[in-house]
């Protein structure tokens, strides 16, 4: 019987500090056993449990896209015991990854020529990066119609993946709307304003073929949702990714249970209409 609690051993290949406050780092992992990478086949929206031996495990969204081979990337916020220790680790260190876990963004539906509007805030953009790279891959791009990305952070220095954001900005097959709450940089070329405001200005109107994926802090979601309602987005076309305290990640320890769902197994991706039928315990 395969033991779902056993992590695949990985080595840290690269650590990049993403934000100016140094609280977010992107880790690039390589599987010690190449066949584990095949077993780890994942889709954008899923997460994995990063296992730091001797400290514990944390559930983190997968930031790399399945189209990127040879490694997996996670962007981790320094919050508690395990993430703080992880932040002190270096290239060459050995740890573990369990996964992929959870469900993914509804690619099967969206790949039928749909418009995709991605709305992200702060450091919740990780699985959205995975999604953007997946969609822009030449093999996949034709499956989608228009792609809009609205992504905001507090300041320019707090945006993730700035180099990649700039690259995507230059492309004509994706509409980037990058924004910051406040810019202290006089050369700031992009928008200034909260994500809900920019969403109101730039998001395409709703129709049966347009899906919105939102990922962000609760406050951002709270104010963005009415904007989408006003634009006419139906609740089953608004897709969200939840967070909850997790341990096993496979729907057994009971911790992330909300209603009859496990966030780790029946989620973390839910539509807003599914969430409305569930107690607000997240």
């Amino acid at each position, binding site marked *: *019987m*395969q*033991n*779902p*609690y*056993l*992590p695949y*051993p990985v080595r840290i290949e690269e650590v990049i500090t993403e934000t100016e406050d140094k609280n977010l780092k992107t880790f690039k992992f390589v599987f*010690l056993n190449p066949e584990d990478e095949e077993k780890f086949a994942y889709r954008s929206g899923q997460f994995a449990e990063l*296992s730091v*031996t*001797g*400290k*514990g*495990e944390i559930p983190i969204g997968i930031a790399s896209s399945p189209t990127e081979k040879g490694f997996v990337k996670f962007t981790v916020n320094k*919050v*508690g015991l395990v*993430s703080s220790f992880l932040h002190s680790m270096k290239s060459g*260190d*050995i*740890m*573990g990854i369990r996964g992929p876990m959870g469900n993914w963004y509804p690619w099967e539906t969206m790949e039928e020529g749909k418009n995709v509007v991605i709305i992200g805030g702060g450091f919740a953009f990780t699985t959205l990066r995975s999604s953007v790279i997946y969609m822009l891959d030449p093999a996949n791009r034709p499956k989608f119609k228009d792609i809009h990305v609205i992504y905001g952070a507090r300041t320019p220095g707090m945006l993730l993946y700035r180099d990649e954001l700039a690259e995507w900005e230059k492309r004509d097959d994706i509409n980037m709307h990058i924004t910051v709450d406040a810019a202290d940089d006089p050369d700031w070329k992009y928008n200034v304003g909260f994500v809900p405001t920019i969403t109101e200005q730039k998001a395409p109107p709703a129709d049966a073929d347009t899906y919105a994926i939102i990922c962000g802090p*609760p406050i951002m979601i709270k104010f963005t949702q009415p904007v989408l309602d006003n634009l006419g987005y139906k609740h089953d076309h608004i897709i969200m990714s939840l*967070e*909850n*305290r997790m*341990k*096993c990640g*496979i*729907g*057994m*320890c*009971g*911790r992330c*249970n*909300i*209603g*009859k769902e496990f966030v780790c*197994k029946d989620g973390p991706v839910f539509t807003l209409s599914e969430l409305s*039928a*569930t*107690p*607000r*315990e*997240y």
Partner: protein
Amino acid sequence: MKVIKIDKKDWPGGLEKLSGNYRLFGPVKDKDSHDFRELPKGKLPDFDFQNTRLPAKSLVYPQSEAMFEYTLDESQPDHHVMKAVKKDYSPRAVFGIRPCDAKAFVLVRKNFDTPEYKDPYWIQAYEASTFVGLACDDPHGTCFCTSAGCGPFHEEGLDVLLADAGDHFLAKGLTEKGQNLLKAAGWTAETEADIEAMKKAAEGKISSSVSTDKLEAKETTALYDAPFWEEQAFACLNCGTCTYSCPTCWCFDIQDENHKKSGIRMRNWDSCMFPLFTLHGTGHNPRGTKMHRLRQRFMHKLKYYVDKYGAGIQCVGCGRCVRLCPVNIDIRKICELMNDYDSGADTCAA
């Protein structure tokens, strides 16, 4: 299926034979209560009890269990890599488990044995066990098994059902494992006697019940927002007594514990009653109040599980939580409140 008659004078000899192939477990009296222990050679299980204080779940699912071990010593070749821990899943026979506890394993299995993931520790321990149940002829006043999906002679989850008939047991070998055990013990004398009358008599003695017929139809968010939770949760201490004594509770925590340069990843029972259970790293706690947590326990037991698996409530009516709760929170009372709740009408708390 034929019923086997086991003369009580043949009982110790049979156990002796079994001890060659099985590890034996059974209720043992410790001060004023009975609990399941491994039986050393020659020790008989003590059947003079209504139910064990704590359920049999710890035999399959220990409260603290090592999952992996590892070394942090970087001079070792496999440092920081999780390694399997040696386990003993040799055959075990559990004697004297009541039908409620056995049914509980069937309910819990739905959690640990799913199409997508299988918990190797729970499943291997469960499948290595042969459950020789002891039917109840003297239920406790807090037992409500007959309205909770099982009963004093219920057979689900058991491999053998024993009924105490005075100077002998009447045994039904319900599964292949059970029949193998009866043969291995040399308990093979068939009899025409049947236990139906005993079963009816025992069921007639159950004096407590719950109503669950309307739970499934209730709207989840309406039940969740019901006004009676505040009052019901007041006395609750948010300790782990109900969850740890419950045979159908299964939540656990995974932790690494180090000692110098090595350590184990282990799991321990955990409880939705504890505030730490749902605490986010940011400090946000979706179940930050006592009321949230108490509501979660009963919603999970009596509503969410019902909706998720369509197999009835996640409760077997063993009554342990009722007997052991320090402040007398009573699941039977809360089940009635939930079952009767009408979000349309103007209800007052019972």
